[in-house]
């Protein structure tokens, strides 16, 4: 979706403001927000693409005025409701009122180290040979899907060069919506600053994205 999360090249958002000796967390609730997000993910009801879309699919004012852990919690509440683990009534009362769907698993403390060390690899075998090879000139597609995509707006209908051909990966645009993993090859595609931003771009700049095969056409 052309949502508020797709920030590349937007202006007026202010300075970066790096923080010296930044702590890992800025409040106790941020720790619980991280843990709740990961532990709830382990319930096995949704995937990372659905969870990204649940965070991103919101009003720009809401998205841009929320801290990142706030966005995570808002996304998590949406996912938990969608999959029947919590209800509006539970949230309104601040306690468990209604029942819950049966999860595939519940993450126990003893299993956390192994679960985190395993992660969630998203590479998948793809039978078909790669459509592109390193050095090929390609053009990204122009599209504006209402659903999830990982092709940023600034990189649509732009011509670039394939730098690296990667293995197959789960396709987020379908996986986010329960429409299957549909793995495709991913390519690192490099664009000049001028191609993306125009004549006034920094002449020393190149930008790469990692693009699924269906985002690309031969130039």
């Amino acid at each position, binding site marked *: 979706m052309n949502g508020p999360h*797709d*920030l*590349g*090249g937007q202006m007026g958002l202010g300075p*970066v*403001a790096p*923080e010296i000796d*930044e702590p*890992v967390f800025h*409040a*106790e*609730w941020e720790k*619980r927000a991280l*843990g*709740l997000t*990961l*532990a*709830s993910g382990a319930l096995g009801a949704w995937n990372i693409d659905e969870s*990204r879309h649940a*965070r991103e699919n919101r009003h720009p004012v809401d998205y841009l005025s929320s*801290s*990142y852990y706030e966005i995570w*919690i808002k996304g998590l*509440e949406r996912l*938990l409701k969608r999959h029947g683990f919590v209800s509006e009534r539970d*949230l309104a009362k*601040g*306690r*468990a009122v209604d*029942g*819950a769907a049966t999860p595939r698993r*519940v*993450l*126990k*403390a003893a*299993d*956390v*180290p192994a679960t*985190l060390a395993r*992660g*969630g*690899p*998203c*590479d998948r075998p793809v039978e078909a040979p790669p459509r592109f090879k390193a050095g090929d000139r390609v053009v990204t597609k122009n599209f504006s899907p209402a659903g999830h995509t990982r092709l*940023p707006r600034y*990189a649509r209908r732009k011509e670039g060069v394939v730098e690296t051909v*990667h293995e197959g*990966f789960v396709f987020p645009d379908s996986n986010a919506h329960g429409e299957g993993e549909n793995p495709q090859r*991913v390519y*690192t595609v490099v664009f000049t600053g001028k191609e*993306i*931003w125009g004549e006034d771009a*920094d002449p*020393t*700049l*190149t930008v*790469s*994205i*990692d*693009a699924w095969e269906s985002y690309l056409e031969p130039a």
Partner: protein
Amino acid sequence: MTHDHDHDHDNELDPMAARVRALETILTRKGLVDPAAIDVIVDTYETKVGPRNGARVVAKAWSDPAYADWLRKDATAAIASLGFTGRQGEHMQAAFNTPDTHNLVVCTLCSCYPWAVLGLPPVWYKAPPYRSRAVIDPRGVLEEFGLTLPADTKIRVWDSTAELRYLVVPERPAGTEGFSEEKLAGLVTRDSMIGTGVALTPEAA
């Protein structure tokens, strides 16, 4: 640590603290989350997984050309050989700075970051100013980190739009010949592995 009293110093009126506590209470009561599991997750990213991991990778790459070559060709395996694996480090790529090219990593769409080697991302990495500007005005962004690159240095920005996670390998500082890997690792800052900084000189460390 029990979770029943570790929020007591929070401001009870803070709406996010209240909201998160309510959610944890609901999920715990329904048997969907184990609060002790949350404690272990938090402890992992507070005390075990952080930028010291990445610094060890960089220091080894500086010291051992065969390792650097492996890191260049198969970063996931080379990094795993040091014991750094798992969540948000499943598919790693290394981007080596050179005398004429500086690498900078961003995720314009969300907050993708190589947790296994750098830990959790800093707030600024996830916030709109960095995500919006890194791809269009990287020099301006770097200035805000106190880093001014020569005008002819090429800048390569890696937007982490898929599941590959990038680790910048900064250039080894001058005057570090004969340094042990441990001593070298002390020069490798988190920001130098994102690209918003360079490695420290021995004088600055």
